[in-house]
C-alpha cells in the first residue's frame, strides 16, 4: 500500500519535470545545443501548491522577472520564455510580489534560493567581479596605452614621415657626446 502511494507521489512529482521537457524548446538556438543537459534538473523548483496567476503586463512584475534567466534556455529571461520552469519562476515572483516585497528583496530571495546562477549577469563580488573589471579596464586603459605609444613615436618624426631636423640634430649631438665620452 505504502509503496503504491509512494509511486503515485513520485509520479505526481515528476509531472512538472515531464512538462518542462515536453515544452517546445523554442529558445534553443541550434539542434546541437539541445543536447546539453538541462541545468534546471538541479535547480528545479518544487511545484507550487496553488498556481499563482501572474500578469505579464504589470510593470513591477516585468522588472523583476526580466532579472532572472530561464533555466532551460540558452539566452532568455524568464519573462521572455514560456518554458515550464520559467512559468514556475514567474509564479513564484508573483507570489513574492503579493507578499509585498520590493524588487531588491525578491532578487535577494531568488539568489539565496537558486544561487547567483539565476541572475543574468555575474555578481560584482569575489572572482566574478573580474568579468566587469577586465572589460572596463580594457576599454578605459586601452586608448591611454595607444595614446602613450603614439606620443612616444610622434616626437621622432614630423608630419610628412621625415624625421624632423630638430630630432636629427639632437640625435647627432647625443652621439657626439657619447663618442667624446667613449674616446675620452
Amino acid at each position: 500500500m505504502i509503496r503504491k502511494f509512494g509511486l503515485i507521489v513520485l509520479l505526481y512529482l515528476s509531472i512538472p519535470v515531464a512538462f518542462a521537457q515536453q515544452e517546445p524548446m523554442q529558445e534553443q538556438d541550434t539542434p546541437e545545443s539541445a543536447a546539453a543537459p538541462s541545468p534546471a534538473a538541479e535547480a528545479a523548483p518544487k511545484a507550487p501548491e496553488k498556481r499563482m496567476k501572474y500578469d505579464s503586463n504589470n510593470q513591477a512584475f516585468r522588472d523583476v522577472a526580466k532579472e532572472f534567466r530561464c533555466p532551460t534556455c540558452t539566452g532568455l529571461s524568464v519573462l521572455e520564455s514560456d518554458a515550464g520552469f520559467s512559468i514556475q519562476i514567474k509564479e513564484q515572483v508573483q507570489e513574492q510580489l503579493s507578499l509585498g516585497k520590493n524588487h531588491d528583496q525578491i532578487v535577494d530571495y531568488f539568489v539565496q534560493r537558486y544561487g547567483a546562477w539565476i541572475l543574468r549577469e555575474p555578481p560584482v563580488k569575489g572572482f566574478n567581479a573580474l568579468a566587469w573589471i577586465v572589460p572596463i579596464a580594457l576599454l578605459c586603459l586601452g586608448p591611454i596605452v595607444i595614446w602613450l605609444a603614439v606620443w612616444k613615436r610622434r616626437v621622432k618624426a614630423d608630419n610628412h614621415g621625415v624625421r624632423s631636423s630638430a630630432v636629427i640634430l639632437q640625435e647627432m649631438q647625443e652621439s657626439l657626446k657619447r663618442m667624446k665620452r667613449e674616446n675620452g
Partner: protein
Amino acid sequence: MFANQGFFLILLGFICSFYGFVAAILAAFWRHRRLYFSSKLALTVTSLLVISASGIMIYSLFQRDYSLAYVMKNSSNDLPQLFTLTAFWSSLEGSHMLWLTLMTIVGTIAAWSHSKDNEHIMPYVLASIQAVICWMLYLAWTHSDPFLANLPAPPNGRGMNELLQNGYMAIHPPMLFTGYTCLVVPFAYSIAALCYGDITEGWLKTIRRWTLVSFIFLTAAITLGGRWAYVELGWGGYWAWDPVENSSFMPWLMATALLHSLLVQDKTGHLKRLSLVLAIAGFFMTFFGTFLTRSGVVSSVHSFAESPIGPNYLMYLAALMLISASIFAFRAPSILPSDTEKVWGVSRESALVVTQFLLISFAAIVLIGTLFPIVSEWLTKQRISVQAPYFNMFAPWVGLGIIFGVAVGNLLRYGSPAVPHGKRIVLSAIVFAIPLTVALVYFGDVMHTATTKNLIAQLVGLYLASWAIGCLIGDLYYRFADIRFKYVLFFKRNLGYFGGWVSHLGILIAIIGFLGNYRGMEHVQTVKAGDSWTYYGLRFEFQASGVESRQNQNATNFTAPVKVYRGTEFLYDMAPAQSLYPTKNQTFTEVAIEGDFWHDVYLVLADYDKTDGKRATFKLYINPTVRFVWSAIVIICIGGIIALFDRYRGNKSRDVVAGEWETSI
C-alpha cells in the same frame, strides 16, 4: 545504402589531403615545383572526393534512405523538398560535412587562383589549408561520421528539428560556413608569409579580397541568423547574445579589424604583423566558436566530457594555436618593417588603429562574456550566468566609439594632420543632424515609451549617429567637389573608398536601428473570439471564427486570424499560429509580423482554448526600427561588394619578389 561508399570517400579524402599536406611541406623545403603541383592536385582531388561524399549524403536524404543514421535522425517522409535538402546541415555531422565541403572548394579556388607573384609561397599556403582539411576529414571519419549506418532501416525517420524548418535556415548555414571558410585563405597566406620570411607582392591584394568576401558572407549570414531567430523563436528580438551567436560574431569582428589593418598596411606599409596576427586569430575564432558551442562546454564544464568532439576540438585548437604562435614568434622578426618612418600623429592611420582597438576589444569582451561562466565554474565551483544584460552594458560604449571613429576617421587623411574642409564638414554636420534627429525621434515615436535613462541614451545616440552620417555625406561631397564632380573619374579610381563609405553608412543606420531596442513594447492579452483589444493606438480584433486549423506543407497550423485597425482604418491581416509537425507531439509558434518602416507589429499566439478555439492568449510586441537593421545590413553588404571591384594599385610596403624554384621542371 551508401554508408560504406560515403565513409570510403571520406577516408580516401583524408589520405589524399594528408598526402597533399606532406607534399606541400616537402615542396616548400626542397623548393620542388612538381611536388608542389602534386600537392595542388591532391587538394583538388580531395575536394572532388568530399563533394562526392556530400552528393551521396544529399542523394540519400532525397531517397529517404533511413539506413543512414544521419538521414534517420534528421529527416522523415513528410519533409518538403527544400527542407529535405537543408536537413543536410541541420545537425552536427552534416554541418561539419557542409563546412568541410566548402573548405575544400575554397581551398581549391585559392590554390588555383593565386597571382603569379605568389607562386613561391603557395606550398606553404597549400600546407596550411590541407592541414586544416585533413583534420576536419579525420573528425569526419572518427567522431562526427555522417555516414554511420543504421541497420535495419526503419520505415520513417525521426524528423528534422522543427525550428530549422524555415527558409532562413536554408541559407544561413551555407553562408555562415562560406564566411568561415573564406577566412582560411588569409590564415594560410599569413602562415605562408611568416614561413617564407617576408610579405610578397600581391599578398595584400589576395588577402584583402578574401577577407572582404568573408566579411560580406559573415555579415549577411549573421543577419540571416538574427532574422531566423526573429521570425521563428517568437520572443520578439533578433539578438540574444547567445553563445552560438557570439561565436559567429567574434570572427566577424576579427575580419573587420583585419580589413582596417590591411588598409593601413596598404597605404603606409605599417601594421604588417598586426595583420598577420588578426588573420590567424580570425581563423582561429571560427573554430574556437564552433568548439565552444558544439562541445557542450558552454552550457557546463561537466557536459564537456560527454561529447567526443570536445576533447578532439580542444587538441586541434591547442595545436593550431601553438603552431601558429611559434611560427609567429620565430619568424615575425623576418617580416621587415616599412621603409617609411612611423607617424602616428593625427592622421587616418591613427583613426584606423583606434577602430581596430574598438573592434578587437569588443571581440575580447564578447569572448570574456562567453567564456566567463566556464572559467568561473571551474575556479570557484559556483555557477553563474552571463547573458544579454552583461553584453548590453558594454555594446553601447563600443558603438559610441565606432560612431566617432567613422565620423572623424573618414575626414582624416593618411600621414597628415591636415583635414581638408574638416571644420566646415563637422560644423555643417552638427546642423544637419538636428532635423534628422528630430525626424527620427518623431517618426520613431521615441517619446512614447521612454524612461528618463534610456531616453537620454537614445537621444544622444540618434544625434551622434545622424551627425556621423552628416560627416560622411560631407566628406563624399568634398571628394566629388575636389575633382570638379567628374563622377566617372571618381568611381573609376575610388571604388574601395566608396564601398567603405557605403558600408559605414550602413553601420550608422544599423546603430540607429539598434537604438530602437531601448523602446520595445510588449503586451499580453487574452481575448474571446470576436473581441478586440487596443494597444499603442492599434485595435486588434480576434476574428469570430476563432482558431482554425490549416495545412501548411508538412505542418498543421492552428491559426488565430487577427485584423488590425488604426481607428477605423483597416491595416493588416495577421495570422499568428501554433504549428504541429507530424514527427513530434508538441507545438511551435509561428509568428505573424506586419508593420511599416518604423515599427514592426509582432504577434505571437501564446496559447488558445484547445476545446473550441474561441479563446486565445496573444503576445504582442511593438518593435521599433527593426527594418532599419535589416536594410542597414543590406547596405553594408552592398558596400562590401562595391569595394570588391576596387582596382588595386599596389601598396607602399616593402614587398619582395619571391625566389626561384630549385628544380625548374
